[in-house]
């Protein structure tokens, strides 16, 4: 905890040492530029599907597994839709989470509960809470909207495994579960390598490490593995991605609340 505080203070001190507001402005500009460029490199995939497996670990070492298939489809203008269907545990099989993301406003989400035969909208307050009991919030699993944050470049430095990175702080413009996220983008491909999450009181709450990147279609880097460690509770979640498939021809019109009922 002390260490983190020191890191933050060092960052603040470094910022204070920079002689003028111009330099501060340029750190802000540089941060925004890196974030926008990173986001741009993930866009334009058309549609995509993958399988995710989450292994939840309690502080005592017990584990539990969740498995799901996800489809994403871009609908133009920075908007996208995704459908996440659970396979495991058996009693939530075919339960599905539909998300419509828009540029510049908050997402809409619906949950399809097959055994109750009901579709229910999820109100936005829950989006920063735990995703199916894991250490991930829903917002941690997905690419973040550049517009929802202010970005400040902190410095360039080594990330996990010594990869040369840009370190950028992003602060939420509206209510969030975090006060600050510190992101390590590798300099070569601007892929997220690591994120440190700071809670409302500024304490280092969680760390995400992203690894196993593979290049698809010669231009899209996708992660194979995401490890989230909660430093407060000692709990951890490993999310493994597999079966990435691009351009399978997902019809965005299938990803609507009314169409959810057809999943069985």
């Amino acid at each position, binding site marked *: 905890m002390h260490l983190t505080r020191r890191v933050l203070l060092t960052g603040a001190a470094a910022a204070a040492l920079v002689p003028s507001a111009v330099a501060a402005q340029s750190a802000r500009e540089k941060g925004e530029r890196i974030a926008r460029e990173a986001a741009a490199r993930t866009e334009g995939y058309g549609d995509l599907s993958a399988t995710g497996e989450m292994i939840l670990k*309690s502080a005592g070492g017990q584990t*539990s597994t969740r498995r799901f298939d996800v489809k994403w489809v871009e609908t133009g203008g920075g908007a996208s839709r995704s459908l996440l269907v659970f396979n495991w545990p058996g*009693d*939530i099989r075919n*339960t599905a989470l539909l998300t419509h993301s828009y540029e510049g406003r908050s997402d809409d989400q619906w949950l399809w509960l*097959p055994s109750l035969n009901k579709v229910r909208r999820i109100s936005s307050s829950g989006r920063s*809470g*735990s995703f199916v*009991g894991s250490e991930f919030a829903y917002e941690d699993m997905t690419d973040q909207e550049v517009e929802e944050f202010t970005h400040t470049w902190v410095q360039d430095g080594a990330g996990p495994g010594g990869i040369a990175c840009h370190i950028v702080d992003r602060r939420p413009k509206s209510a969030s579960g975090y006060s600050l996220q510190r992101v390590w983008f590798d300099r070569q491909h601007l892929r997220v390598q690591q994120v440190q999450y700071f809670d*409302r009181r500024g304490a280092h709450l969680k760390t995400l490490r992203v690894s196993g990147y593979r290049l698809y279609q010669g231009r899209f880097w996708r992660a194979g593995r995401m490890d989230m460690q909660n430093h407060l509770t000692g709990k951890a979640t490993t999310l493994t991605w597999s079966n990435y498939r691009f351009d399978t021809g997902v019809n965005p019109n299938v990803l609507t609340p009314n169409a959810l009922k057809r999943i069985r």
Partner: protein
Amino acid sequence: MTASERIARLILRRNRLWLALLLAVLAGLAAGLPRLEVSSDNRAFFGRENEEYRQLLALDATYADSSGLLFLMVPPEGTAFEPAALEALRRFTDAAWQIPYVLRVDSAANQSVSRAEGDEIIVEPLLEEVTPEAAARFEERLMGLEEAVGRLVAEDGSAYGMSVQVVLPEAEGTTEEVVGHVRAMIEDWRADYPGWEFRVTGGMLGGLTLEQVALDDLLRLVPASAAIVLLLLVFLMRTLVGAAVTLAVVLSGTVATLGFAGWTGVVLTAGTAISPLSVTVLITASSIHVMLSWMRKREAAGPDAAAEEALAENLGAVTVTNLTTAFGFLCLNFSESPPLRDMGNIIAFGLMVGLAATFVMLPAGLRFDRREHAGRIPISAALMERLAGGILRRWRWWLWGFPLAVVVALTGIARIGYDDSIYRYFDDRYEFRRAADAITEKLSGLESMQFSFHAPEGANVFDPEFLRAIDRFSAWLEDQPEVVSVSSIAAILKRLNESMNGGDAAFRTIPDSREANAQLMMFYEFSLPVGMDLTSTIDVSRTQTRLIASLRVADSNETRALADAAEAWLAENEPLLDAPASGLSVAFARLSQRNNQQMLLGLGAVLILISGTMVVTLRSVKYGAISLAPNLVPAVLAFGLWGWTFRDVNLGSTVVTTMTFGIVVDDTVHFLMHYLRRKRAGLDAAAALRDTFSVVGAAIVITTLALMAGFAVMTLSGFVINQHIGALTVFVVGFAVLADLLFLPALLYAFRGKD
């Protein structure tokens, strides 16, 4: 020359050598003092093998483990729902999120409430923005929220509660960091909101209060008791030299007790920190015997000869009495509770070093009192002889009076119950207790009871039959008068099912399939804000879930009775649910009972050990048997009186009988040894009794006064366990002097002929 005389001469003639040796040992023990640690763990009272404690550890391992803080915020009367108060409430909630290591905050402002609106279920905090209309709506919705009333808001709407969960890292000083932050925060609130009342309680504060009590007792009561017994000594016996040397002896005993604790890694707690008090008082009693003997010898001999004779006369009796006292304390090892075991061991050790110090320092020191009439025996031999005469005239009264008193006492003992609770262990000089009382009065009780249920083989917690069984059990619990509220996943699922069906109360039931329940719970999980998840209620593998009932009880007898009744009800009615009542409240409620069962073994052991010692010392089975009566009667009378006056006992009381047995026996030893010496010298029973009264009567009365005064100081502790040990010991010692001076002579007289 007898063996005692030879040893006495050896001690006094080479006194500097012995003194140097003793001081070297004390210096070695004193080096252990810096290692002393004071515990702030409110679970320190449980032994590793205690069943309830093991259940507690299992709960910690199964569910998310965190410590709670509970805040009480009382606005000026009648203003609780005014916009200003609601603004304040929001500020308190935001401030709570700044507490170090905070995991979640529950207040009336941030409670998530769900409502059905068409196809949408809206989950939102109860208080988002403060407007007059929002304020009016807030009151109505909050008071209608079953799980908030009594926990986050008082039933009459006059006060707010806030619950904060903190995950303490396993590092030094984190408790202090959290508590320091919380206290500073409350100071800020007090300054900014005059007219409001703020209280906070929780396990961490309980632990720190235990630490505070340990220090208060050690630093205030131990010196106070030493001062009182020494003043008593000066006042009754008029010897400053004697008092000064006794002070040195007592200091040796204290250093030995604490140094031994330091070296052996005994962590001081509220129960053990006061141990030097017992050592001080008991060593003073031994010193009194040596000093009185010395004063008698001075009437005929010079200072040096008197010192040697006094030492020789007391060597045997004082050694035996200290050994029996140490046996009594060592038998506390039968206790389940580590602090009580530690207390027994460090006191026994301190007594042995104190005994050595008494022999090495006291007679040698008394030689410096070279006055013509050294000291004064405050109770004249003639007075004691007259007392003996009076007792012998009415010996049948005393012979039958005591058994009658025992019968009356047994009816008092039948009234005794056990009351153990981490809150009621402190009296109201500590803010922890005052806060607990205020919170209990305004909000719910602080005590709770948990049941961790395993889903049937092959199923998980979403099994409908399993959930319905939990629901029926919740309903039974809610019907019990002590239960304030019950929380379980059954209640959550019923409410969700209702919301899912447009708020139709007919759907306030558990859905019929495991899938439906799992999916409802998943929906609920998606709606929970940061910090809230199900891991405090459902285990990771989803095969165990816990139900928590919060209780409002007057004492832990009620907690224990409810726990027993709940377990019996489950065994009889719900074959699917098999779990013991557990949690900290239940563990404390059952602690004394368990400890008492263990201590019966301890009492048996001390009875056998001490009676054996008596038979060997007195060289007579008959008198060994007779000695049992005056030794057992005082504890019975003391607990009888307690049953008719204070009524409930606690963990501390369960060890008093065993612990005091070794103390009570001392006077019997002095009395019987002298009586038999005279009787074997050819005196008849009446004459031997009169002589015994004139020689040891005064010593018995004075040592008893010192013991009573010293242990009475223990009742000034703010820690109820120590209060009870102190008060009961005063009772026992008081009844013991009556038994030794009234009952024992009558017994000896009744059985005089058959020797």
